[in-house]
């Protein structure tokens, strides 16, 4: 598997429109270095020379080749782009340069991690066994040596039933659905690992009076993208757009997978340069579920008959949610629940950055990045934390020992659904 398909990867790595766009954005860099002040990776290790260095600065020296291998320490969390006052697409430039760098010598691990669906479908029927393997230290050590996934890194929790199977087998909801139909996009993690989150999302939407349609859907390709496999990722995301479009034109697409939403709304176009009407159609119709609830609230259409939940809970807004330019909608919605005190972590990043923190050579860096967050979570509530994306929840849970749920769980509960 290693090293195959080099020429076509090279061409997609170098010649897509997105690179031209990001590269043009480097013209806006005034070297103010604000990006470096917020970079969570540069803060904890000198191995990474920082987003300005590897981004707009190094890009002027690149001619189809990435000679600066330290850029691989960039976790692609996207904080630099978020904080740049000049609009430079720093993280996007870095992701692109990394994709180019990896052409021809892509580690086996980066390909495996990228295959989210494969991982899920393989694990689901044999969940107890998979769980045993993933929790088995000696076996994980073997995985670390062979594949390069750190033995202590968080891995997805296998489930015994997929969301798809639950959705198909459950009794048909009675309705009525006065607010019409919406499309639910569960994402791979929401389909195979975070099944409860998907279920609760559907139930909340139905409680609000929406008919929830769930078309058969594949992977968005995010993990492939973040590991530089742009060609495969582009094919995946467009296939997904086709899938989601089968459910109906003009319907709002709602997702509880913050990272997959980010892929549809941001990464596919800005990093990979996918320029396709299908993506534009789906991307502009897609809403994060908490964003959707906040929109309803602002329109005066969200019932706030929440039960009181006497609790103080830490909330962490994941990088990929922040990159969508929607602020922190979960924070606003959760604050409508009486009795609930939500404490914003205000932490930059948990360290996992998709699959970055899984890799054995990045694991320590990722743990150092996340440490302030883990400490904050433990200090705020040792029982429960809230966070919108899957890999971040797994990272927080694994590293802090605090159970971490999607905010929709709290809404579900406050609506008396659980």
């Amino acid at each position, binding site marked *: 598997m290693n090293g195959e398909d080099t020429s076509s990867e090279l061409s997609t790595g170098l010649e897509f429109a997105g690179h031209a766009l990001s590269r043009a954005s480097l013209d*806006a860099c*005034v070297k*103010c*270095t*604000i990006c*470096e*002040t*917020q970079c969570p990776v540069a*803060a904890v290790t*000198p191995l990474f020379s*920082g987003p300005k260095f590897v981004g707009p600065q190094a890009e002027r020296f690149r001619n189809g080749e990435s000679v600066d291998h330290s850029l691989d320490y960039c976790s692609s969390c996207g904080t630099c*782009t*978020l*904080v*740049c*006052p*000049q*609009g430079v697409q720093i993280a996007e430039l870095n992701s692109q340069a990394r994709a180019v760098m990896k052409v021809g010598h892509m580690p086996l691990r980066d390909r495996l991690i990228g295959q989210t669906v494969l991982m899920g479908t393989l694990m689901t029927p044999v969940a107890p066994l998979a769980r045993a393997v993933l929790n088995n230290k000696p076996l994980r050590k073997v995985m670390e040596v062979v594949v390069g996934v750190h033995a202590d890194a968080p891995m997805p929790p296998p489930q015994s039933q997929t969301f798809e199977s639950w959705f198909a087998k459950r009794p048909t909801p009675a309705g009525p659905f006065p607010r019409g139909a919406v499309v639910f996009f569960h994402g791979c993690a929401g389909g195979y690992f975070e099944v409860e989150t998907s279920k609760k999302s559907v139930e909340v939407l139905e409680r609000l009076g929406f008919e929830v349609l769930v078309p058969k859907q594949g992977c968005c390709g995010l993990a492939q993208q973040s590991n530089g496999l742009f060609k495969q990722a582009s094919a995946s995301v467009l296939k997904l757009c086709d899938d989601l479009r089968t459910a109906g034109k003009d319907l709002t697409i709602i997702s509880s997978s913050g990272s997959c939403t980010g892929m*549809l*709304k*941001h*990464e596919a*176009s*800005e990093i990979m340069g996918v320029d396709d009407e299908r*993506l*534009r159609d789906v*991307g*502009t119709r*897609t809403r994060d579920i908490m964003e959707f609830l906040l929109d309803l609230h602002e329109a005066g259409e969200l019932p706030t008959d929440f039960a009181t939940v006497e609790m103080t809970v830490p909330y962490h807004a994941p990088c990929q949610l*922040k*990159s*969508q*330019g*929607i*602020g922190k909608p979960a924070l*606003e919605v959760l604050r409508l629940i009486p009795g609930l005190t939500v404490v*914003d972590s*205000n932490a930059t990043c948990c360290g996992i950055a998709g699959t970055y923190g899984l890799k054995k050579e990045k694991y320590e860096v990722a743990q150092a990045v996340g440490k302030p967050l883990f400490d904050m979570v433990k200090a705020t509530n040792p029982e429960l934390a809230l966070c919108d994306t899957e890999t971040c929840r797994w990272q927080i849970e694994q590293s802090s020992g605090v159970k971490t749920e999607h905010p929709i769980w709290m809404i579900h509960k406050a609506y008396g659904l659980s």
Partner: protein
Amino acid sequence: MSRVVVIGAGLAGLVAANRLAEAGVQVVLLHKGLGGLQLGQGTIDVFGYAPARVSNPIKAVGSVATTHPYAAIGAKAVLTGVDYLKKLLPELLLGDPESNYQLPTAVGAIRPTCLAQPSMIAGHVTDGAKLVIVGIRGLKDFQPQLVAENLARTPLPDGGRLRARHLWVDVPARDGEVDSSGLTYARAFDDETFRVRFAKAVVGQLREDEIVGLPAVLGLKDLHAWRDLAGKLGHRVFEIPLPPPSIPGLRLSEALTARALAAGVRIVPGVRTVGYASSGDRVTSVTTAAGLGGRSYTADAFLLATGGFESGALNLDSHQVVRETLFNLPLAGLDQTPLIHGEYWGPEQPLFKVGVAVNPKMQAVDAAGIPVFANLYAAGGIIAGASGWTEKSGDGIALASAIVAAAAISKELA
């Protein structure tokens, strides 16, 4: 509840957001990236040169030309703003609106400013003072010999001279790193064990009565790191601000942001505000762009605190046309031609005084003085008539225009 959208997270945007939130208004703060505080020196200038060196800044505010932003803002608002910031951030800002500090810069010039951080105050120049300027080998943005020699050959504003020498220490911020940013050092200084190591490297080289000048990297989160270091050295110390990213500026930015969040301001970072909708003489909403997603924010009033040319709030295109990039507001100051001239050390470049004209409520107005929209206000660097970095007036204009705008908006919405 009424809602206000503030665009921009520099000093003007953050102060206005805080003031509005305190007044009970729901505030959404939209910003493209972190604002201007990290770009500046981390003190609050009110008036430094008019064009002669100013010793009483508030007095200078009261005697500006009618085209100057302070003419519309007024000295009272400046006093209110200065008082507000001092009360809001007592650990970060000290000073007196009737008297400027005269503080050394990182090239050894002596710079007037109104409010300064406590960590800088010991640098206020006095006749006969003995300074030692300490450079850190791993920090390239602070060249102590240049600072010391320039200070020593400069007559002081109030007469007299000081003595200054320099020394170097080599204390890496992190193992194996020779090229550390100011921020990396600031994080190191947050840690007491580093301060112990640093003090040990410096203390033996100090002479009696010397005041120790250091780059402004003495802690980011720990606002008392500098005081602790002074104690360990047994000497007075002061910080000298560096080029961006400014650690003192970051301290102010983080403190004002934390205040705003605590006051309930909803901050949406990483979004470019690219368009607006209006109805009659009112702006009804603004639209942000981020990736394929875009959102609209409706509000009762809008405050434009997007800065000047440095942020792209104002743009000069290749055909030499200047525009305000969000609302395409009418601009003042374009009658000065040429807008740019070739004398680098010559008179101020007229381009950088171009901006939006405002009335005493900080509503953006056209050439006839009529508000462009009844509910559109402007604050900070976008306002025409001054180039803050030349006068050392940018912070005061930002602060006081934000105070005025927030008050006008609150009153309007009440």
